[in-house]
Each structure stands twice: as C-alpha cells, then as structure tokens.
C-alpha cells in the first residue's frame, strides 16, 4: 500500500477499535491509538504475510510485547481476513477467543502476551531460529515505553546484539505515558536511545505517528548487517482523538456515546482527506 492509503487505513482502524471498545465497554484505548500507525505500516506494507496461509513458514513474525494494545491488532487481523469481522463484537465477552490480550488460538497471532517484558526474548528466539535455519524471515517486536522498566527487556536486548540478529526489529511505542502518568516521573528512561545503542543495537528515532517516516524506517530493515534494529517510534498516546491525546487516564478509558460520536467524526474527516490525497497523486 502507498502512504496515502496507509494513512486512510490507519484512520479506519482507529474507528474500528473505538467502536469495538465502546461496544465491549472495556479496552486499552490510549495505547491502541498510539500504535495504530505502526501496526498499519507493518501489516499493510512491510511484513511478508498471507492471511490465507497464516502458518506459512517464511512469514515475517510480529510479537505484541505490549499485549494490552490488542484492540488495534484484532481490528487489523479481522480487516485482513484472518477471521470474520463480525467476530469483533465478541471482544471481551463471555467465552470469547478475542480476549483483552493476544491469544494464539486465533489465526494471525503467534504468541500469547499480556505480561509485559516477555516479547523481546521470544522474538530473539524466533530470529535466532530464522538464522540457524536460514529461513529468511524477520521478527518485529512492539514494546511499550513503560515496559522498558522490566529487566527482562534488557536481558533480551543483550542477547539480540550478542547473536548479531539483524533480522530482529524492536519497536518502542514511545508515547511517554504509562498508567500512573509520565514515564519520566514513574521511572525515568531517558536517554533511552543511548541505552539501546550502548546495548549494541542500531537505533533509528522517528515520528511514530508519521506514515512517511514509518515506511522509510521499516522498509529499510534489515538496515545494518549483524546488528538488531531498534526503532524509537515517538508517538502520542491517544493519537487521532483530540480529547484523548496525551491524557493518562485514556490508557484504559472507554469512550461514552458522545465521545465516540466526536471521535468518529474527527477520524472520518481525516480518513476522507487521506483518500483525496491518494487520488490527487
């Protein structure tokens, strides 16, 4: 997909996930909105995947280490046809497969996540297997910035560099918020880029809500031989919904009927402008 279409798609995914969260009356709204552009770039352009053949051996792997942002993922997988879109209405309801975290009983999900700090180690294992078997697939792992406080992240960071996994891409949704407020107040992370660089990673810092930047950075990987890549995606939590942007309690706040209406009208306008942008080109 071209960038204008990707932008329109991201707006659509945001609307889908807001409707789903509103319907279920539960969900992690802020983080799903902040990483919607990253996931759209990965799933509609960058990753080699086949919704008709979800277990295709050479597929690129995606691990949602920040598993709580599963809403954006469910909406994308449904949109791509991994499972019927109607199933989205069962999100978080009694007996559902579409629970509040990734569930690998559902096609398209590799691993069950939700406990933060697991995803990167799993991704190191997958990337290592890809290397040892010369399978050629890449592994993309999306982490939260609050998640960086888990020591296991850094154990995996060390291993990724040690094994020279240039087929491994860590992405940090650097929205500078976690549940209790600013990441720098809760447990300071800066200078986060320097930390990753000192662990031996190729660090690329971008605007993680800007589709051109995302496409440029993600199209380039593996970008440096023998080094894993860390994309510091500087984002806005709640992105795309004006009144949710940068507001901590939108981490798991559920939109009211009026808020949903307002958000949908903002996003519809945005989506239409991107569709036009695509036609003008």
């Amino acid at each position: 997909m071209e960038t204008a279409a990707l932008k329109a798609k991201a707006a659509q995914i945001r609307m889908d996930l807001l409707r789903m969260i509103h319907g279920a009356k539960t969900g992690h709204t802020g983080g799903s909105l902040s990483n919607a552009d990253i996931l759209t770039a990965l799933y509609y352009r960058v990753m080699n995947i086949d919704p008709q053949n979800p277990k295709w051996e050479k597929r690129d792997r995606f691990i949602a280490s920040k598993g709580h942002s599963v809403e954006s993922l469910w909406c994308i997988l449904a949109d791509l046809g991994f499972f019927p879109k109607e199933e989205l209405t069962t999100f978080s309801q009694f007996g559902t497969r579409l629970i509040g975290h990734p569930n690998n009983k559902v096609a398209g999900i590799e691993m069950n996540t939700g406990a933060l700090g697991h995803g990167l180690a799993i991704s190191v294992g997958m990337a290592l297997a890809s290397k040892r078997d010369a399978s050629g697939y890449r592994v993309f792992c999306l982490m939260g910035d609050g998640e960086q406080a888990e020591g296991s992240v850094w154990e995996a960071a060390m291993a990724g560099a040690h094994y020279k996994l240039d087929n491994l891409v860590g992405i940090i949704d650097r929205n500078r918020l976690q549940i209790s407020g600013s990441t720098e107040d809760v447990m300071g992370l800066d200078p986060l880029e320097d930390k990753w660089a000192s662990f031996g990673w190729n660090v690329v810092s971008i605007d993680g809500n800007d589709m051109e930047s995302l496409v440029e950075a993600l199209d380039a990987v593996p970008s440096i031989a023998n080094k894993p890549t860390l994309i510091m995606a500087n984002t806005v939590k709640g992105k795309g919904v004006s009144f949710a942007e940068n507001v901590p309690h939108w981490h798991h706040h559920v939109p009211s009927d009026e808020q949903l209406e307002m958000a949908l009208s903002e996003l519809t306008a945005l989506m239409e402008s991107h569709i036009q942008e695509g036609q003008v080109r």
Partner: protein
Amino acid sequence: MANKIPNRQVICDTLLDLAKGDRDIMVLASDSRGSAAMAPFADTYPEQFVEVGIAEQNIVGISAGLAHSGKKPFVTSPACFLSMRSIEQIKVDVAYSATNVKLIGISGGVSYGALGMSHHSVQDLAVMRAIPGLAVVLPADRHETKKMTEALVKHEGGAYIRIGRNPVEDVYDSDDYEFIIGKAVTMREGSDISIIAAGETVRVALDAEAELKEAGVSCRVINMHTIKPLDKEAIVKAARETGRIITVEEHSIHGGLGAAVAEVVVQEHPVPVKIVGIPDEPAIAGKTSEVFNHYGISADNIKKIALEMLGR
C-alpha cells in the same frame, strides 16, 4: 449488592490511618497505584511511598532491602505478576532471608476477567503456600480486610495477601469479631457437612448454606482466611463432627485451599472431601460471576454436591 467499597480501598484507608503513628510503614507500587487504590497514600505520605515502575522483581527486592533496614514495606502489585514474576525474590529475599515484607496481590483470582490467563492468578496459593515461613491470607470482605491489615502491621515476617478487584458483598455485619492470622472463623455451625472457603468464595459458601438449610441440611461454614499457617484443628474438628467436607476456592483445584485441607484430612481423620475451584485449563473469559457459574463455584452446584455426598 449494598457494599460499594472494594477491599483495596480498605487497605489504603487502614494504612493511611496507621502510617500516622508509624513512619516505618511504607507502600510500594509498580505502576499500580491506581489499581491498588493507593494514590491517596502516595499523595499523603510521599516520603513513605516508593514507585518502581513496571518491575515486579525489582519491587520485591527493593522491599526486602527496606525491610532489612527496619521499614515495614507493603508491596501492592497485581497478584498475577507478583506471585509469578517475582517468585524467586519472594522465596529467597523475603522468605529465606526472613524479611518483614507484606506482599499485597491486587486484582487477584479471575477478577481481571477477559484479560485472560496472563492476568489471572489461580496458581498463586499453590506456589505461596509451598514456601517455608510465608503467611498466606485471603480476606473475605471489607471488614475482614480492615482487621487483616491491622494484624499485618503487627505481624513480623513475610506474608502474601490476595484480594480481588471489585467490591464484594459483606459476610460480616461489622468488624466486631476476633481476627487472628492462622485461626479460621466458623461462620455457621452445622453437623451434617462442612463447607470450607476463603476470600470471595466465603460469600458463595454462605449462600449454599442458606439453600441447604431449606433442604433440611445442617451445614457448617468455615472461613479459612489464612491458607498458611493452616488452622488444622478447625479442619480435623470439621472432619470428625460433620463427616464430609466441600472446599470452595477461586483458584486451581490443584495445590490450593482444597489440597491444603485434603492433606490434613487424609493424614489426620480421613473423610470424603470434594474440591470446587477452577479446573486445570486457562479459565474462560468473562466476569467473575460468569466464570464462577461456569465452573460450578455457585450455591446451586455446592448444594447439589452436598446432597450427593449425603446420599439424598
């Protein structure tokens, strides 16, 4: 349901009260002060509050160090992560080194609902009760939570406490009763059968007792709020006097309250025991009440089991 106050809020209120006169009381959080209802404590006593970020191993290690230096740390973190991610710190830094750390597992059992198995803590009692020297306590309602928190401040040594997320119906009329860590409370006297429960399932056991009473069954209800040290005397007495026991827990049927009771019964006074809890599978997604009903953690099912055991 009348009560709107969740147990987590009661712990915060009680600690706020006690911290006034005891500057060694400390509360630690792992990006969990909101879900632990501890924001008021953090705001009132910033010098007695420590935020560690999303780092459940670190929070227990730091607490052990604080305790070794004379502080009385209360760790407040989701039960699922605290009981699993931090288990080695709990075994070695708290239990083995005998530090006075209180581990409050919040949003325990299946109270995180549709967030799935990563967020359920239904193996925590099995793990915690196997660790020497650690007390394991589950309060049944807000009154018991208050009394338990007061007892914990006086208690020397490590303890793991598990509470749920949502307000629970009262099982006591007031906090005017004796609460001792390690001593069960007989909620209803009875002679035909005993139901032993802990935490939020005490309410379910009481409802079952009411139904059984109507069916002419004299049912004892024991609130085993402390899983460790276990009140063996109360269990043996129940086995001897009522001849059959049903245990009810918001936990795997393996290794929890039922297993603890059965260990005592088979060795001290063998009688039939039925264990009601979560089966050996990732618990189904849903609200606590839906999950409980699905697995027969309900008054109806307990009544049915009791009548079967009584041959009626």
